[in-house]
């Protein structure tokens, strides 16, 4: 083919341009990693904050990933994602009240979350999906309020305690106390994220879901049932949210109807920082926000816990002003 060679060169150039853009991002991330590593080696307090930041950050990242999944599929932010996670955490609490052990309740909750996410997409989102973006956003805001009301009605607004199995013991690594809890949280989130990633990357359903999210009309033409794929996408997002809720609870030490609201804000910031379209970006964004917040709260107690949420908003605003595509987002370039 005559144009094969020239197109190969053009392809390489395009990749080169892409590399130049992302190289800066990788340098910044590498710099941040080196800074954290040196800090951890020089100060045990710094190391402690960093590890706790990573654990909290993986929770934010998991919820951010849920937001990204929904956003990629429907180009809408699900404002109820945090409340949905709160609801599923209450369901886990209820299951444990009925006598199930933690991990059995954990698994059952993820299954219920999947069913719930799918059901919500089919019953509430699908009817308005083709109307307008605003209509879908309003439905998710309504869902936020609805879930809040239901949880308050069933369980009340007072604090509940979920018996987490992680305990309060710590590992001692070179004088740094690393709580078991932090290691468990990071591990559980990583495993869930890897499973979801594998599903998208290696299975036929995953391929169908990616196709449906990228180009619904073309996906339907090859036989993908686009509506079912969107529903499954909502189900998976609810599962990731449920993991975030269950893993966030040990850091709050208690369960209340508002406990996921600040975390949703951090997850928004993380998702935007990562580029909104990028699953890896959401995770990296979550870890970055978690570590940064924990270090600031640790070293500048005057700012303290009260200003954490405004800080997350500042990050959000800064990203939108300076680099709207985030760390890993791409501007849409399509060859016609």
């Amino acid at each position: 083919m005559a144009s094969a060679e020239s197109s190969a060169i053009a392809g390489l150039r395009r990749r080169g341009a892409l590399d130049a853009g992302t190289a800066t991002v990788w340098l910044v991330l590498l710099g941040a990693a080196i800074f954290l590593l040196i800090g951890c080696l020089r100060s045990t307090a710094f190391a402690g904050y960093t590890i706790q930041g990573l654990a909290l950050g993986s929770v934010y990242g998991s919820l951010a990933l849920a937001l990204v999944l929904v956003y990629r599929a429907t180009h809408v932010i699900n404002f109820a994602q945090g409340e949905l996670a709160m609801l599923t955490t209450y369901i886990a609490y209820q299951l444990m009240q009925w006598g199930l052990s933690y991990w059995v309740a954990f698994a059952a909750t993820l299954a219920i979350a999947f069913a719930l996410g799918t059901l919500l997409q089919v019953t509430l989102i699908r009817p308005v999906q083709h109307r307008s973006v605003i209509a879908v956003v309003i439905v998710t805001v309504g869902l936020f309020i609805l879930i809040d009301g239901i949880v308050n009605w069933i369980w009340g607004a007072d604090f509940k305690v979920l018996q987490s199995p992680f305990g309060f013991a710590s590992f001692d690594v070179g004088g740094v106390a690393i709580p078991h809890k932090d290691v468990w949280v990071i591990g559980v989130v990583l495993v869930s994220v890897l499973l979801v990633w594998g599903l998208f990357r290696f299975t036929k359903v995953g391929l169908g879901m990616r196709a449906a999210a990228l180009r619904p009309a073309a996906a339907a033409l090859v036989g993908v049932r686009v509506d079912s794929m969107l529903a499954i996408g909502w189900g998976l997002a609810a599962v990731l949210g449920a993991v975030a809720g269950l893993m966030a609870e040990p850091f709050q030490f208690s369960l209340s109807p508002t406990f996921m609201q600040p975390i949703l804000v951090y997850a928004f910031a993380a998702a935007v920082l990562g580029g909104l379209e990028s699953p890896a970006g959401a995770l990296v964004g979550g870890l970055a926000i978690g570590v940064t917040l924990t270090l600031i709260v640790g070293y500048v107690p005057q700012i303290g816990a009260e200003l954490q949420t405004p800080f997350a908003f500042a990050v959000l605003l800064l990203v939108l002003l300076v680099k709207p595509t985030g760390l890993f987002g791409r501007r849409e370039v399509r060859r016609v």
Partner: protein
Amino acid sequence: MTALLELEDVEARYGPVHVLHGISLAVAEGSVVTVLGPNGAGKTTTLRAVSGTVRRSGSIRFAGRSLQRVGPDGAARLGIAHVPEGRGTFSELTVSENLRLGAYTRRGSIQPELERVFSYFPFLSERRRQQAGTLSGGEQQMLALARAFVLRPRLLLLDEPSLGLAPVLVAELFRIVRELNEKEGLTVLVVEQNAHLALQAADAGYVLEAGRVVLSGSSAELRADDSIRRSYLGY
């Protein structure tokens, strides 16, 4: 000669805009049929009516079965591969993922189909892992054809495959379509602006104007028709 696809008095509209005013056409099994006509005549909409991507009324029968209630994913399941305008390539996915999507409705291994496709389009084999969006326009059109073919469709709907391609590539493309038809028995309904090439590759053709069939016949008949020569062939 039995008709694999039969349209009778098919109408279609986009909102208030009436595009097809009662189209009737037949595509015999194992043949290549082309639809010609000026822009806005309803050529693309005719293909969309068959694959169920537009609301339509009238009778559409495929292999003796009504497609009235069948949507695009159902059509794919029945063995209709539609390569839309703009090719429908998933540019963010790899070549290999695009091909796997082509066979989405099939069960079991698609290795034999992949090898067959690579024998027609050897360059695709070397670029399996490349992002489809980084292929050239011609390569993307070949990929679209390959993706349709791994479905092992009974009917291939091709929408303006020559759009934006160099003449050399267009000739190559039609040669492959003809080869697929002759060697694999693939039935093809192709919409095309390039009437000259289309009539060379096709057994029969229909000419649409303003949503109606104004002329039909075998390729030889159409090539000999004075009005066709003047309007579409330019000699």
